[in-house]
Each structure stands twice: as C-alpha cells, then as structure tokens.
C-alpha cells in the first residue's frame, strides 16, 4: 500500500513539517507534482492526519510538569471510564494514557509553580474516582522530544 516514495516523503516532512511541498519534493528527490499527488493520497488514506502546533508551556508560565502514574481499583468495572471522564475536566491535564503494565493510567499535569501544583493535586487529582495509588515523576529537563517515526 505504501511504497518507498511515500516513506521518504513522510520521513523528510516529519523532520520539518512547515516546509513547502516544493522544498519537500527537492529534499526527497521526487518531482513536485508527484509529491503533491502522494501527499494528497496519504491524507485521503488517513495516514497523514494533519499537523499540530506544539505549545511551549514553560514560555507560557507553566514551569512545573509532573507525570502522575495511577493505579485504579480493578474490582470496579467502570473505574477506567469514570476516572478518565473526570480527568478530562481538569484543564491542567494535558495528556492521558492507559497502559498494560504495572501502571494503569498516566496523566501529564502542568502547573505554574509548586504551590499551584499542590493545589491542583489536592483539589482535582486526589479527588478523581477509583484511585488506589498515585506515584509522581517530576519533570526536570527534556533531553529529546521528537515523536518522529523511524521510517
């Protein structure tokens, strides 16, 4: 379904999503008209779903980022659904993942400072339903953050 040309285009595009199709075609060694057609096809197939802007939360005054690893009460069949539904209502929660492993759910929580974090933690996180255990990893620095695929 996808050939080497598709992969090459996506590989170069994910390295610099803002570039023009003409530039992308040049770096990928593909004719511009062919690159246009391929990108259109990848979009139509749903492989290339779009482009998102990445917000720098520190620049907006959110200096604290915490990764909360949550264990839920598995005797409660609706634990995951109810926990996630209420988590969505907390604006400072920027990511929600569910897992197969020792951790059930992970939340990324953003806060302006430690005092703000403590307030969110006490009022909005500890009150989430069906929590058995919460463990926090406090973010110090990001060494790598690309989310590109090794195509």
């Amino acid at each position, binding site marked *: *379904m*996808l050939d080497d040309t598709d*992969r090459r285009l*996506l590989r170069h*595009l*994910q390295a610099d*999503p*803002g570039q023009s199709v003409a530039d992308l075609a040049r770096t990928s060694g593909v004719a511009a008209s062919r690159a246009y057609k391929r990108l259109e096809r990848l979009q139509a*197939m*749903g*492989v*290339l*779903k*779009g*482009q*998102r*802007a*990445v*917000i*720098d*939360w520190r*620049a*907006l*005054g*959110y200096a604290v980022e915490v*990764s909360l690893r949550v264990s839920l009460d598995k005797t409660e069949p609706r634990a995951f659904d109810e926990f*996630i539904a209420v988590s*969505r209502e907390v*604006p*400072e*929660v*920027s*990511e*929600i*993942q*569910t*897992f*197969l*492993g*020792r*951790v059930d759910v*992970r939340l990324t929580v*953003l806060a302006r400072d430690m005092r703000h974090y403590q307030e969110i933690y006490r009022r909005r996180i500890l009150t989430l339903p069906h929590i058995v255990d919460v*463990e*926090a*990893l*406090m*973010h*110090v*620095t*990001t*060494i*790598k*953050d*690309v*989310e*590109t*695929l*090794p*195509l």
Partner: protein
Amino acid sequence: MIDLDDTDRALLHALQGDATLTAAELGRRAGVSQSVAWRRVKRLTEAGAIRGRRLDLDKEALGFGVTVFLGVKLAAKGRASLEDFERAVTAIPEVQTVQHVLGRYDYRLRVVARDLSDFERVLRRRIMTLPGAGEVEANVVLSEERRPGPLG
C-alpha cells in the same frame, strides 16, 4: 513569560488542532480579523509560545503498532555516566522522548516499535545495554489522548 488574552488562547487552541490553518480561518475561529490573527500568531511564535509543528500520523498504518513508556533507573550515579547515558539513549531512533525526572526513576522514555517482538529487540539490544542503565519498567500504551491543556 508571555501574558495571554482570550484571543491568544483561542488562536493557540486552534493551532494545536491544526497548525496549517490560514490567518483568515484562524481569525474566524478566534472572532478577530485576518490581519489581527496573523499579527497575534507572529507575536506568539516570536515569543516562543509555539515550539514547532508535529505531524499527526497513523502509526499503525505505517507499521508501528506498539508504543511503550519506560521508566529507567541508573545503576551507578555520577555526572559522567548521566551524560553518557543521555548521549547514547538520544541516538536510538525508536526512542522518541527522553525526560530526566525525579522520583522512582531517573529517566522517562517513549519508545515506538513495530510489534512486541520488535520492542523486545530494542529493549534488550539498545536500552538494557545503555551505559549506566539499571532497573527498567515497561508499560505498553493501550490508548492515548492529548488534551488542549490550560488554555481555557
């Protein structure tokens, strides 16, 4: 730090969903004119509020069926070994995110792989052999949701 008003927040929120929106469309969504939208986005970008763009790809369709979050604890602590570890882990193409954290683990990694046996290969050959790598905990991602965050 940048102070945001409601227009800035609306613009950032729209760009989080689709970074390719035109100034005209952004203006419509934020309830301002095209030129105001353009100027605001320029200001936000120059002030560093927008770090860049990211492709939203169907990972499964491209053959990457597994995403795993790893917690890694270093065995021997020391400044030199932290740097060696960071340099080596950053070079692994399957490792998308590396965060230095405080808590039960020293590093948090996000790893993509084709399937579980491909992940096992990456874990055994690339991660476990990293300089200073000690205890490793793996959690396989079942679902993931990105939220707009505190823009409201």
